[in-house]
């Protein structure tokens, strides 16, 4: 049984160096926040990161995609397209990571993820869109299963790698000359929340060579030092398989 439950640990209870560098946001007791998530889903990971950054406690509700739990009628009522993540906040139900993140941004403005400057704002949305519309959907299971079934799993892997590389090439161009700690500034913003799960999954699952993406590689290293990102990692989730 996976014993590491740090995904539900408010930032301030992380120990040592992590606590020292943690964002100073007092945890908001919102036991009515429930996140339906799958450990390995990069879309779920985005929301986990944001909840951590904003210091929001939540109940982790696992949806096992490999056992097709997303097709349970209960879950379909929460999200008719049957994808994770979905967020329940009292009476409010929001699905789709982008919609959830913008909802959290409005409702819990602490640690804002979108800058005021219109150009920087647009850049954050564009980066989020590149990941959320042009990379991730092409490796999602409907496409993956189709290619695997019609061709084979090697082709599915090559297809996924191609689109990750294509997206990363474009992102690297967009972020050329980036001299700030994170993608669009010295604070974590929406772009970072979308970038890291895609980079992490790209490396871990698809062997993407990050040496050709120096800006993204540098950002990735910076993300891996941030407690909110660490606590949101797939392996740290309650439904991750125990080693």
């Amino acid at each position, binding site marked *: 049984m996976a014993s590491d439950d740090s995904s539900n640990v408010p930032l301030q209870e992380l120990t040592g160096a992590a606590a020292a560098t943690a964002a100073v946001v007092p945890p908001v007791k919102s036991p009515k926040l429930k996140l339906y998530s799958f450990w390995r889903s990069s879309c779920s990971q985005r929301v986990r990161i944001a909840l951590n950054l904003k210091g929001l406690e939540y109940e982790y509700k696992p949806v096992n995609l490999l056992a097709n739990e997303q097709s349970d009628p209960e879950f379909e009522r929460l999200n008719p397209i049957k994808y994770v993540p979905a967020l329940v906040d009292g009476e409010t139900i929001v699905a789709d990571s982008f*919609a959830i993140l913008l909802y959290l941004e409005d409702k819990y403005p602490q640690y804002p993820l979108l800058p005021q400057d219109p150009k920087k*704002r647009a850049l954050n949305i*564009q980066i989020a869109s590149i990941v959320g519309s*042009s990379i991730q*959907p092409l490796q999602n299971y409907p496409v993956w299963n189709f290619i695997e079934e019609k061709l084979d799993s090697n082709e599915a892997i090559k*297809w996924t790698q191609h689109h990750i590389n294509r997206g990363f090439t474009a992102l690297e161009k967009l972020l050329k000359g980036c001299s700030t700690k994170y993608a669009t500034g010295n604070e974590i913003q929406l772009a970072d929340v979308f970038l890291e799960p895609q980079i992490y999954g790209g490396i871990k699952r698809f062997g993407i060579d990050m040496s050709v993406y120096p800006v993204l590689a540098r950002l990735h290293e910076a993300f891996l030092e941030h407690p909110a990102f660490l606590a949101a990692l797939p392996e740290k989730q309650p439904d991750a398989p125990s080693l």
Partner: protein
Amino acid sequence: MAEAEAEAEATAGRLRLYSYWRSTCSHRARIALSLKGVDYEYKAVNLLKGEQSDPEFVKLNPMKFVPALVDGDSVIGDSYAIALYLEDKYPEPPLLPHDLQKKALNHQIASIVASGIQPLHNLTVLRFIDQRVGAGESVLWTQQQIEKGFTAIENLIQLKGCAGKYATGDEVQLADVFLAPQIYAAIERTKIDMSNYPTLARLHSEYMAHPAFVAALPGRQPDAPSSS
């Protein structure tokens, strides 16, 4: 001399939209501009001729996608970023409600279209399927992805009981900006049977009767083929 100067000034203040007549993503941006009453210069990018790979355009949008919006020295690639940029810069009429639940619902519907449907039948996917799986296989695939997405949106709208004249109420909102191009393309190009989606079918007729939506239709664009 004075005329040329005045013209240069007018062009200088104008937004510029890089668009392809038939691109649903470009269509979204055109609707948003049209709804906000914003004048813009139309710059055609012929995707079938590969003009998105022209070095000039790649400098503007490294993803080599349309649409891209140029506003002075700002370049915004991506229809979602463009829609929200316009929402901030031209607040009237608002495309997002103040109510957080309704706002989230608009983003959810827009995202189902922008992440869950359109990317799965983009040119790159269709070419791969036709070349590697089998000629014409992409047609069935496209139909399946649209039907899956439309079923979800139809169910979502009914579940939330939110529809009015438009998708989430009686005013046009962000969800409509994203839905209209997807529904139009589904009907015109993929010949989807809309009888399974009564709400979406009704919304389509509302959009076809709204001047701002009509002005943004593919066939109305400068780069649309003249014979239609």
